[in-house]
């Protein structure tokens, strides 16, 4: 879920922009500048993937994918996610333009954490990689939900109820996201294991 315009206090939106600009600069420095166009192309793949709807009982959910982005892109995931959110905002109005910085922090920081988590624990066997990928997927969505609740709560105690409901609404998404991420990582481990190496995906 993306935060729309007008929800967050103005100081938080500006602070979000400042923090995300700093992390984006760090993220851009972690990869070769020659590889930035490639990050852009991969971002559009993640964007399209996040539009796929997963059936869930009578309704359906769409994936957020911070965990997978982190596992595949490493530190570049922050850049990729900020770019994706910018496009979602200007194309679909998902997430307001003033809240863009806060949204990037909310989705991008968990992605980078998940990247570390995945690279640290993935081990060597395919089954373990798939399992770790699943955990990373669930962790990414969980952390995003926690960030979302935290950001909403900066609006004062009037927003505590909304924050609580946003957290609860994310529980099924966390489960679906974990399962799908696990299967996807398992698929990649079988089909193209080079993608799961730390940030080497661009340097072969």
């Amino acid at each position, binding site marked *: 879920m993306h935060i729309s315009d007008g929800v967050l206090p103005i100081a938080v939106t500006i602070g979000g922009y400042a923090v995300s600009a700093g992390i984006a600069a760090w993220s851009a420095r972690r990869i070769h*500048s020659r590889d930035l*166009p490639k990050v852009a192309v991969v971002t559009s*793949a993640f964007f399209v993937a996040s539009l796929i709807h997963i*059936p869930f009982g009578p309704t359906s959910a769409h994936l957020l994918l911070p965990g997978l982005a982190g596992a595949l892109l490493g530190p570049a995931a922050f*850049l990729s996610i900020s*770019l994706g959110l910018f496009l979602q905002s200007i*194309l*679909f109005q998902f997430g307001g333009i*003033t809240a863009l910085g806060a949204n990037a922090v909310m989705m991008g920081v968990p992605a980078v954490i998940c990247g570390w988590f995945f690279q640290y624990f993935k081990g060597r066997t395919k089954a373990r990689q798939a399992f770790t990928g699943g955990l990373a997927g669930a962790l990414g969505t969980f952390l995003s939900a926690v960030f979302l609740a935290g950001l909403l709560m900066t609006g004062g105690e009037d927003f505590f109820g909304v924050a609580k409901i946003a957290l609860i609404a994310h529980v099924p998404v966390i489960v*679906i996201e974990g399962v799908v991420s696990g299967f996807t990582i398992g698929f990649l481990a079988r089909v193209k294991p080079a993608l799961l190496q730390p940030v080497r995906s661009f340097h072969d």
Partner: protein
Amino acid sequence: MTDVHHIQVPLWYLPLLVLIPAAVAAGVVPWLGRRARTRVVPEKDPDWSIPPLADSHGQGISLIHRWDVRCKIVTMLAYSFAIASLRHLSAAAAALCVSLVVLLAAKVSFHKVLLRVFALAGFLGMLLVVMPLTVPVHPGDTILVFGSLDWLNVNLRGVVLAATIAAKAMAIALLMEPLLSTAPLPVTLHGLSRLGVPDMAGQMVLLSYRYLHVFTHEARRMTAGMQARGFEKKTNMATLRALANFLGMIFVRSFERTERVFDAMQARGYNGRFPDPGHLQIQWLDILQTGVWVAAGTALVLFDYVKV
């Protein structure tokens, strides 16, 4: 103003005031949203066709089309932040009116504006339902109690708060179409880079915007293939596994494509820059228009500040 006002309402007001409007909103808004999207894919999935930014509709007609792109970006972003900082419903409603007037003056595609409004409806609808029920009770609040249902307390302060947020979000969202589609995306990004945003950021936006369409097309072809093999989405493990493989395949193809794209770019002499889309020049009319917007934003913020 110190104690909490309770207003007892007969129980039959509940359907009248809450349930019927909620049901109408829950039914009509998604229906209109579906109608507003032109369907390309004959399936149950929501159709996320990537809407074009800046079609030729009304190109160069309105004042906003002719506004210098740098002035436009800076002014409208600053104005959006000014709107986001408003705290009172009346000020937010005034901002919404201003946005509507601008929308009419900008001569942009009404259809795309509608899509933006529908995209917002879910989040704002959630706030409008949740906030009246969960906002903590402060002295001076007014609470509606429906008959004997004393657990269902509708706090009017929550209603006002959610409505203020909704008005602000709508006021800003309505400005996005005049901001973005009154110039082609490369020109807007060129304006951003002339304003000090790193060149590379703009290039990445352009590239991923372009490949968005490529991957949407690819995903659609893969979906068609899956359907031809009899795949149907259900709530079960097999569906999740099939969709996960589908995602994996999109990623594999995208990573392979990046190599080819990059090779092709280098073969055409890419040296870290795209050619500039045109020359920008600020004229008096641009500054005048910026002045009008700044005045409007300042007036709104002052009005909000003076009102206690």
